[in-house]
């Protein structure tokens, strides 16, 4: 269990802003989803308060991606309700676009737009969705690019950047919409080891500022340092959830124990 004690960043984490409020950011009640006849998500109940940092883990194919993609309606669910930021997810397109502009998302493969420069990637949605004037959008974009430490790449194209840099741009691009919630779907799984750290560092910085975050990740160091709740999924269900220390040191279900022993090595 040595990896449990390796920290993701060497510095001490500033927890002064990391406060969980009573306000509810996301509420999922009795949610079910099928792909055809395949029951991917089974009776999911999950409440996320504002300021919470939740890590979702579980074996591949357990429905982690599907769950967080339901939250911004990239996948539609068939039963139950999802309320994001006080808005009930329905089929209304206006409603969906509104929720998506409030919820940022980072993907495993970044999904930057290769035909636009880094700066244009970051200003596209603010200009067209928020109707921000171009100058202002560019200033915001530069602010966030500085934050993720790549302002000097602003005029390059995504294809010219390393994977870690691209993922940080993707984070900056989401932040430019000033989201109240951030979703991460295995943001470091497609990266080389030396780049994982720079991305995690950016995510930790975000957590320190009090962002509400849902991260699907297998970076257990990150979970231990930053998360205030770890959720374990298997077979489309939430099998266990607990505070990180408890989750790692004292797992309850057999599935969790088995998973942890695999992922943490022997």
């Amino acid at each position, binding site marked *: 269990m040595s990896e449990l004690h390796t920290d993701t960043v060497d510095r001490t984490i500033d927890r002064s802003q990391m406060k969980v409020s009573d306000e509810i950011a996301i509420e999922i009640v009795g949610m079910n989803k099928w792909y055809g006849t395949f029951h991917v998500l089974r009776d999911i109940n999950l409440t996320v308060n504002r300021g919470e940092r939740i890590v979702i883990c579980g074996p591949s194919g357990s429905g982690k991606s599907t769950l967080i993609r339901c939250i911004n309606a990239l996948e539609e669910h068939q039963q139950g309700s999802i309320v994001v930021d006080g808005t009930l997810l329905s089929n209304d397109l206006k409603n969906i676009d509104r929720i998506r*502009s409030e919820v940022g998302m980072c993907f495993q493969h970044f*999904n930057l*737009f290769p*035909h636009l420069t880094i700066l244009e990637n970051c200003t596209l*949605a603010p200009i*067209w*969705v928020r109707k921000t004037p171009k100058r202002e959008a560019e200033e915001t974009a530069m602010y966030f690019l500085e934050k993720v430490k790549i302002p000097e790449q602003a005029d390059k194209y995504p294809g010219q950047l390393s994977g870690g840099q691209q993922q940080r741009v993707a984070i900056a691009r989401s932040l430019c919409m000033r989201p109240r919630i951030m979703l991460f779907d295995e943001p470091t799984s497609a990266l080389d080891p030396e780049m994982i750290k720079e991305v995690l560092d950016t995510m930790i910085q975000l957590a320190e500022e009090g962002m509400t975050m849902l991260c699907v990740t297998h970076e257990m160091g990150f979970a231990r340092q930053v998360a205030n709740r770890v959720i374990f999924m298997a077979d489309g269900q939430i099998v266990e959830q607990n505070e990180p220390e408890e989750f790692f040191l004292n797992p309850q279900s057999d599935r969790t124990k088995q998973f942890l022993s695999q992922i943490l090595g022997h």
Partner: protein
Amino acid sequence: MSETHSHSASYVRREMLPQQDPPALQTGAVKWLRENLFSGWLNTILTILSIFVVYWVLAHILPWMLGGIWTADSLTECREIRDQLYGEGGREVACWAVLVDRWHQLLFGFYPDDSYWRPILSLIVFGAAVAPVLYESVSRKLLLLTPLAPFIIFWLLWGGTIWGPLAVLAGFVLGWAVFRFGEPVIGSLGATLAAILVPILYWLFAAGPIASGLSSALPIGIESVPSDDFGGFMLALVIGIAGIVLSLPLGIVLALGRQSDLFIVNKFSVIFIEVIRGVPLIVWLFTASLLLNYFLPPGTNFDLMLRVIIMVTLFSSAYIAEVVRGGLAALPRGQYEGADSLGLDYWQSMRLVILPQALKISIPGIVSTFIGLFKDTTLVVFIGLLDPIGFSNSIRASTDWNGVYWELFIFIGLCFFICCFSMSRYSQFLERKLRTDHR
């Protein structure tokens, strides 16, 4: 491998070598020749064989072309001059005089010859209007001309009162105004519908009377030229350019329709594309020239050329749709999701994220379709329009030039080749310009 890491001194260079020129046989023309033409005995034989073939072809064609006769009034005169120059039965030479005599027909058909400036000016206007679209370095101010160009060109080519095109143009302005001022009141869906319906009603009922009223009050106009007088290469250009300009947007819409989840839109696009593609263009052209008369209300005189343009447009838009669909399918799903997750709506994500990339992938296919369309305009000869091929027939039918083939076809071929080759070069330029992946 291990040697490079070993510490045995013999493998380690102590003084650095200065930069040296590569061996003479490895550079420049010699190297190129060796690598590309004489790299092996098979290659060497092929090289010699090709040189011989090229020589043989040129040896026959060049004297024929260069020795051509430029001044004569008929083919018989041409032959007399030839016999004088080279002796009877000496050598065959081209009779370019036919081009000198008839170039205006090959290019302009029966267009009145004191008005040739009008198609030429139209071409210039067209060039100026597309230049800012094709090249970023061209002044953006020219973009103001782009939406007006179709009306200017239409007026220049067909002539007549200026109020006709202006009245049609006013319909677009009307539609824009209805949308602009209607949207805050009746919402965007209602405003869109109104912005489509109001101009259509206006064109059907108001535009005609307004235009004729204005033209009788204020007769400004140029001599009107009926479509029947259009011909030659100009006809091919008008049909080709109109078809190209109109079929691209229509094809994109059809491609999006074929991808759509909306049942009706999807099925309509699929059926449209399959039916149009499944039937030869010539059949559609005959449909345009014969059948449409039965369907249109009696007495409507729907210009044949306009019908041909519509058919050619529909035909190539079906091909464009399939080419663009290929581009859309080639994009990773992550691009759609990336755009969605940022809150862009369907049209925004299509216009800003998906289509720019899909179209970039489809450029070679789109340009091939355009080139095909442009060359297919020669098919209109079968429904009685006098395109360049049609004119070559009628020129040959005259007693003066009976028997002239190659000279005319070479000229026509050259005209088409210049246009098609420029399109092809432009597409390569565009592909290079849009390459941002830096692989």
